[in-house]
């Protein structure tokens, strides 16, 4: 029997019909779960109208008892379902309302997890290291307080060279020894000599680290600075290999679109030697203040390892050849990030450290 049919039957009964109509109106007007519970109690509670009616049927005639019992139970079923449906609706609304009251000001700051930083120079050194590790290089280190032999002599620097003077190089006092050949390394290149002394070829290494020169600090000079040195020694290494290696590095470091230029130059411990320029990113090569109108920025010194250096470390220049290169980390940072003054790197000003 369809629901409509039994509702028609119920409506036709004066008493059940009255309960039905009243219950329906009460359901409709129940605005919250509490009111709805009131409706349930009023009709289905122990003393509710429908419950009382159903309890009273046993006093009726059998046929009437059957009819009212059937319709009363149908009405009870209908009412229970209607209560449940309405209750569901009310609960959703009430939860939404409750959640609305939990609204937060999303513009308040989040709970602060302290955020630290790596130093820009450390980040750049790691970037350089990773590019060369990708090309098959290992990382090596050497002392910062160094002997003249490793810093100058074995790098083919003549004894009278001006860079060795007290005005250019820091010397270390070794009390009681009378020695004047202990210095702060002026470059990371002595690591080349130490590594070659200790290791037979082939060799593919880079040596990042601090170096020191007796420059009074200004915007472009610092008495302490960082370099990354590179060295490859093997059979058949060519100047073309140096070019390919440094072109790859330069484009990785500065951008694939940049041009790279090799100019002949002079260094005591390499021959042939080169300086490497990258095209100026500020003017795009047309010339500006940063590149001093040349369109190029110098970033690297490099060259083929001088046979004399191989002589010092016991490598045979007829058997192996190699190239070496060195770059200033601060200079790369100045060019890549536009930091205007090299001294800023060692002030440890948090306002700078937090930028990178």
């Amino acid at each position: 029997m369809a629901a409509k049919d039994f509702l028609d039957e119920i409506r036709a009964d004066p008493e059940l019909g009255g309960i039905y109509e009243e219950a329906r109106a009460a359901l409709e007007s129940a605005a919250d779960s509490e009111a709805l519970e009131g409706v349930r109690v009023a009709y289905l509670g122990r003393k509710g109208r429908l419950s009382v009616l159903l309890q009273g049927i046993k006093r009726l005639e059998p046929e009437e008892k059957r009819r009212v019992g059937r319709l009363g139970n149908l009405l009870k079923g209908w009412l229970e379902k209607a209560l449940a449906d309405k209750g569901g609706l009310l609960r959703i609304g009430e939860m939404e309302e409750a959640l609305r009251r939990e609204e937060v000001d999303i513009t308040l700051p989040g709970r602060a997890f302290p955020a630290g930083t790596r130093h820009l120079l450390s980040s750049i050194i790691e970037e350089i290291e990773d590019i060369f590790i990708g090309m098959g290089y290992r990382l090596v280190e050497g002392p910062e307080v160094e002997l003249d032999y490793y810093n100058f002599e074995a790098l083919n620097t003549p004894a009278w060279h001006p860079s060795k003077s007290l005005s250019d190089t820091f010397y270390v006092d070794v009390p009681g020894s009378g020695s004047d050949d202990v210095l702060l390394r002026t470059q990371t290149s002595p690591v080349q000599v130490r590594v070659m002394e200790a290791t037979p070829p082939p060799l593919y290494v880079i040596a990042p680290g601090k170096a020191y020169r007796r420059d009074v600090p200004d915007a472009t000079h610092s008495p302490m600075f960082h370099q990354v040195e590179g060295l490859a020694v093997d059979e058949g290494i060519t100047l073309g290999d140096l070019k390919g290696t440094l072109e790859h590095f330069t484009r990785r470091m500065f951008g694939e679109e940049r041009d790279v230029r090799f100019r002949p130059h002079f260094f005591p411990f390499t021959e042939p030697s080169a300086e490497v320029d990258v095209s100026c990113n500020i003017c795009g090569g047309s010339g500006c203040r940063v590149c001093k109108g040349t369109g190029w920025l110098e970033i690297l010194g490099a060259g083929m390892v001088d046979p004399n250096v191989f002589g010092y470390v016991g490598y045979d220049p007829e058997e192996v050849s190699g190239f070496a290169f060195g770059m200033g980390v601060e200079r790369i940072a100045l060019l890549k990030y536009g930091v205007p003054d090299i001294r800023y790197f060692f002030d440890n000003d948090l306002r700078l450290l937090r930028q990178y």
Partner: protein
Amino acid sequence: MRVSLEWLAEYVDLPASAHDLAEMLNGSGTAVEAVEEIGEGFEAFVVGRVLEVKAHPSADRLSLCRVDLGGEVADIVCGAPNVRPGMLSPVAPPGSRLPDGTRISEATIRGVASRGMLLSEKELGISEEADGIMVLEEGAKAGARLSDVLAARDTVLDLEITPNRPDCLSMLGIAREVAALTGQKVKSPEFALREEGAPAADAVRVDIEDGDLCSRYAARVIEEVGIHASPWWMRRRLQAAGVRPISNVVDVTNYVMLETGQPLHAFDLDLVKDGHIIVRRAANGEAMTTLDGVERRLARDDLLICDPSGPVALAGVMGGEHTEVSASTTRILLESAHFDPANIMRTARLQELPSEASYRFERGVDPGGCVRAADRAAFLMQELAGGTVRPGAVDARARIIEPVSLVLRVRRTAAIIGADIGGEEMASYLRSIELEAEMVKEDGGEDTIRVTVPTFRPDLEREIDLVEEVARLYGYGRIAPTLPRSSHNIGSLTPQQGKRREVARILAGMGLHEAICHAFISPRWLEILDPDRQCLPSAPVILRNPISEEMSVMRPLLLPGLLEAVRYNLNRQVAGLLFFEMGRTFVPRAREKLPEEAQKLGCALAARWLPKQWHRDAEDVDFFAAKGILERLMSSLRVTSWDLRREGFPFLHPAQSCAVSIRDRDVGFLGLVHPRVAAAADVPPNTAVLEIALDPLIAAALEPLPYEEIPRYPSIQMDLAVVVDGGVDAGEVEDVIWEAGGELLREVRLFDLYRGDQLGEGEKSLAFSLSFYALDRTLRDDEVRSVYEGIIAKLAGGLGARLR
């Protein structure tokens, strides 16, 4: 080296544009640092003849000039002291613009109208001469355009000459480079010297006593010279090269030095006793006064040019005052010599007297070019000073420096460069720079080139030097980029290097900022940190020649730099003073020249640890901030074998400091800085520091970690709050708990500390959360309970603890 292109063009044809020339030179190893245009816009200036000079009515230093500008006479106010009636000078009329951009307009200067400006050489941008207005040579017409009268238009290249190329410190040397790059031959200056009178050798005698320091000394004698200013063309060229014109004779020596690279010196021959030159070492303590008026004390290794009465010049560096050419000089002894480069460098540095001459001598001049340079200068003195030149040069030679012969292997050269260059091509490059190169074909062997190097290239001594010449003349740009073909190279970080990066990342992840501090510190720090040298070395690593006292000691600790970083930011009101640094410290080693360099990790935390936030109060730094950093670092690195021990350090708070150990070895310290240090370093009293050696930390972090079985049965949690005497450390209580807890106890965590009214005087309460489990079964309450009771009994017995 400043190179005037107007001048250079005398010896070699130049490319049409200065830019192309610069590119060419850059590509072959002569870096062009700047390109400067000179004499641009001179069409706008006119020649003026000063007719009348009157004092300015209201300004002492100014004069009021009437100047003939051809068609008109203008009143011009002038401040130059040298302005005289009758002189010809350049004038900038109103509306014109000076090379530095200044626009000239009609102006009223101290109440007097001025129609234009009389110009100095500096204002014209042709020299640094600013003391007076420029005097033009007679012959020019008033009103003429300056550009028609004064040949000033030029382009100057500022070249960086590397120390191995002394030959390029001359116009002819640069011309040789350009000729090689453009396939030309250099046009050497042609001149015809007219020699008259008795031979030079009759007037001059030269003795070289120390031939090791002077291989050659050539002298010429020029007489009847008249000393006056050089002509404009020579002055202009000298100025373009950055050399100040002085007088014709001195200018000629400088001009020929710039042209040939051979420094020359002119003596007043009448002031050289007996015309006798002696080249010898100085006696220790010997003195002489140089041209600059400075008396110089010399030593045995300084080389002197002397006459029989004493020094007349500091060889290769500077002439002497006594024999200087003056306005009254008529007889010249012209020196053209070759000195030992290293010796000249030494003297010039010791005397702090760098000169154009010493700069060239210390890099090496051509020992074969002395006489020709002397001839050239004699000729110019004849032309410009009206001198008569005695026949012959007195050419004293202590030894002869011969051209070097070398062999270049063709296949090896191509292999080093990595380009397929043939032997003939290599030889042609070498010939283009005036080397003799002869191909030698060997049957079955390697082709070689026999090369003779002229004496003007002292840098070419070995085969590899020639390889470089071939490479740069072939052009680096033409060499194809390749990568080493080796399969030997496997790139990676070592485990230690990887961990070191990890340490930095962990610390940055905790909110610390990485600092990089100077490795040299002030000795004052040692006094602040450890006045009695209890733990710092009594003799640290000290620089012999620091920039300043403030940067004279190599740091034995990272601490000073970190405290300076704290102070620097504090002074600038920057908050969040949490720093770490990874770097080396330096401590001398007995019987070793080189100090011990230890890799250290340092941290400094000061003032606020966390700022006040809307949901939470601020947290100030204390001992436990530094301890928390260390604990977290250790747990992130999975290092368990570490410990802290109460220990005093002279720079730490005596009651809030400890030694850090890893695997029972002391590796550093942790604590609050001592109030004395905080005050002296000007950092907050609550500054906590930590400094440990990195290598043992990393070694411990690399220890392999065994697998620990994951519990499959539920654990039982129990809290334990005990009251102990205030002097008992939490760690002691924890140790007893562990000891009594047996194998079922798996975790102990202190979560509360209480002192106060609810406890007795001097007591404290510690609350721990304990966790028990077994790997093989579910624990029964009663067995845990009995362990728990055991713990309580042990605490009561051992530490007098009672349950709270």
